[in-house]
């Protein structure tokens, strides 16, 4: 494994940790897989389609999201949105995230 791939692996790991939070943050309103993917990518969050779609299902099975098939349109789509538990979890995660940023900033500042 060369230096570059070590670095890219570490970056991928860092991102992976933030993915759930980013996804939950976008689901205050109903979204289907592809619209969410586009939303995230315009906001600069890099997530693969092959990662996002299974992630949505996993979050649903954990009870953080609820889903509904919309068959009214020409293309049937599965819409996801936060469940009450999901909202609660999201709020706690955001708090945790703020704390993490502060701590990390502190550590990084000291190092400089």
């Amino acid at each position, binding site marked *: 494994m060369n230096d570059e791939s070590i670095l890219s692996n570490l970056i991928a790991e860092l991102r992976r940790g933030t993915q759930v939070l980013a996804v939950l943050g976008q689901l205050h309103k109903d979204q289907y897989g592809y619209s969410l993917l586009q939303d995230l990518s315009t906001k600069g969050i890099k997530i693969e*389609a*092959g990662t996002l779609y299974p992630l949505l299902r996993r979050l649903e099975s954990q009870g953080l999201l609820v889903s509904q098939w919309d068959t009214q349109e020409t293309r049937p789509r599965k819409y996801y949105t936060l469940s009450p538990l999901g909202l609660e979890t999201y709020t706690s995660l955001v708090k945790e995230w703020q704390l993490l940023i502060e701590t990390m900033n502190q550590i990084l500042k000291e190092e400089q």
Partner: protein
Amino acid sequence: MNQWVERYIYAVSKKLPVSMREDVSKELRANIQDMIADEPLKEEDISDILHKLGHPNQLANSYRGKERYVIAPEHYDNYISALKLFGVIFVIVAVTTIPLTVYVDGWRTVAKELFRSLSEGLLNTFTWTTIGFWIIGSLGKNEAKETWKLNDLPELPKPNQSKISRGETIFEIIFGVSFGLIFISWMQNGFPFFNMDIVGPFLIFFYISVLLDFCVGIVKLIYGTWCIPVVIVSTIEKIYSLIFSYFFLRSDFLNHEIYTTIADNSEYSIETIKNTIDLSKEILLIVIVVGTTVSILTMFYKVYKVNRKA
């Protein structure tokens, strides 16, 4: 909908537990359709989009999460069918041998033996099938290569193949084999109608006939549709029984004492009785020839119909 997309979805879904398959396929199809959107459907574009989703095995792994299992989900269906098949074969063998064992040993031993062999046999079937599939599962790791091509995707199964009813087949095997065995044992044990000097050499061919019948039944159970292997074995079996019936019915297999016995108890002459029986044999032969030909033709027609639709 694009063939490649369907093949991709199939490749993913067949590696998922049955309970997830339908919903994941539907959602994946909708998402891919969204990704294709209004782009022109060139093969390269489709390939790009599918590659964005990753290798089908990789995607299936993500959908499944990190569950632990003895039987890998992609083998689960085959595992269940194998269990059923081996179980059924076992029960058929056990049941069809009943008449023979009853004949030899009497009822009580049979009931005891049957219970013992059924419970032991079924447990063995279960154990070895499970171990076999566990080994297959641990050997074939779910590889997800970095580079893959559209052509690597598995072919979609043909939808229109006409099914062969399992229940009917099982009944056919049990009935056919036990009737065949009973018939053979009757003849062997000097059933007075038969001329044993003539029938004796035919016995081995009766056994082959029963064996063929059994094999055809098993092949039908395995494939479950009128596909080429089933048609081939069925045709062989039918042609065999046709040739066999011809030679057997044309032989002088009846005991001549029958003619005298019937003549003694009726007003007909031996000559008339012999002629009547010979005529019945001829008619029976014609019925068998016509019946077999019709059933072979029906079978080929079924296969033709399926392939025309596909």
